[in-house]
């Protein structure tokens, strides 16, 4: 029994695709879970229907104002982007912030245990998702896809992930390695920040352009506090994630290739040269 468990653990730890049997169970369980989630949503909606009318009116007005503002900003952004493109072409720089496509998905189940915050979303390889794609909520980075079945995907949250993400502070561009911090459940820690980095509490941390699976510039969270390591050479910081892991319903999955592949860069470069 023990040998069987250990063998299963070793074989299943880092595989590409779930097995046929898991996929079959996926076909049975995923519809049930979506149904359940839908029922829960419906009950909540019905309960809040009358309570919400006044609040919604107010919110609607606010949102309309915001939309106007955002539209104005967007048009300005478009202008800046075109200017940026022109200047980039002048400098013959490659475009690091490539466009990416997003797929929206609904969370249908959360981890049964209390230790981790992994969850299941209702899109899988049928919708073009793959292992290691980045998952976002409206507030910030949530995690990455750990395993991709046919009609479901298992997402591993950044607050429980022992694989490191390279992050950097927006203000000072100091780089560190972010992992989940289980000694304070619900937060992350950023390690190996160089000793002379000028990072302070409250700094915003985003993904850096060193990562191969996350696009640069996604918000991760804010620095809660900073300590010096016992070796005195590096610092580590505790990060409060921007995403709210308790109350998430919908997430976005970002697909695209962000690795610094020299051949790809070369190809893109030659493309842009041809364009202009």
């Amino acid at each position, binding site marked *: 029994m023990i040998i069987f468990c250990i063998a*299963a653990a070793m074989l299943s730890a880092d595989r590409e695709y779930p097995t046929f049997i898991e996929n079959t*169970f996926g076909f049975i369980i995923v519809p049930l*879970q979506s149904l*359940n989630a839908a029922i829960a949503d419906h009950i909540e909606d019905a309960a809040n229907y009358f309570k919400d009318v006044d609040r919604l009116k107010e919110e609607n007005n606010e949102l309309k104002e915001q939309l106007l503002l955002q539209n104005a900003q967007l048009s300005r952004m478009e202008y800046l982007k075109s200017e940026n493109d022109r200047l980039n072409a002048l400098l013959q720089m490659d475009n690091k912030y490539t466009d990416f496509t997003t797929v929206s998905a609904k969370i249908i*189940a959360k981890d049964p*245990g209390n230790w981790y915050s992994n969850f299941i979303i209702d899109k899988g390889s049928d919708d073009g998702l793959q292992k290691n794609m980045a998952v976002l909520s409206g507030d910030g980075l949530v995690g990455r896809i750990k395993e991709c079945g046919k009609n479901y995907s298992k997402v591993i949250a950044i607050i429980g992930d022992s694989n490191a993400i390279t992050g950097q502070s927006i203000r000072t561009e100091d780089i560190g390695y972010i992992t989940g911090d289980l*000694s304070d459940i619900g937060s992350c820690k950023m390690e190996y920040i160089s000793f002379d980095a000028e990072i302070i509490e409250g700094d915003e941390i985003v993904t850096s352009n060193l990562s191969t699976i996350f696009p640069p510039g996604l918000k991760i969270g804010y620095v809660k506090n900073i300590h010096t390591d016992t070796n005195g050479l590096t610092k580590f910081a505790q990060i409060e994630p921007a995403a709210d892991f308790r109350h998430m319903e919908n997430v976005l999955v970002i697909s695209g290739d962000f690795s610094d592949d020299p051949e790809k860069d070369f190809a893109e470069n030659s493309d842009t040269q041809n364009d202009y």
Partner: protein
Amino acid sequence: MRIFVYFLTLIINLVLQSTFLESISLAGIKPNLILTAVVSVSCIRNGEEGAAYGFFAGLLQDCFFSNYIGCCVFLYTFIGYFCGAVFKNFYRENFIMPMGIAAAATFVYEFLYYIINILLLGYTDIIYFMCRIILPEVVYNALAMIIVYNIYLKANEYLEEREKYKRKVF
């Protein structure tokens, strides 16, 4: 019939555990229905059946949620077997004893889970994990056990009645 009912309860447990239980969690801790189901089966029937039930419950949970397969399989099988062995000499209509066993089983399960998955990553602050996760879940599971155990007891009565009838016919 019994196997079909077991399979059905496994799936219902997993679905409920991963969807509805999130909304009745207290301080971020939710009870573990799957664990209480395994303890109920092994108390009501016997250790061997509990172990088999635990094996498949763990396999299902591991397939869907864990980072690797094997941890929950081992823990649920282990708990299923030993709860049955402990409960052998007690009346199963008594509710207090299963509650105690569920509490003990939850403690063992979470403690071993901590050692296998968390301690080896370098998190040694056991007092924090005890107060934050393990002890609240022990209490919550013991309370959830009252409801779950009653349901399983009724279901088992019905199933045993059917099986008795079947044996008379043949």
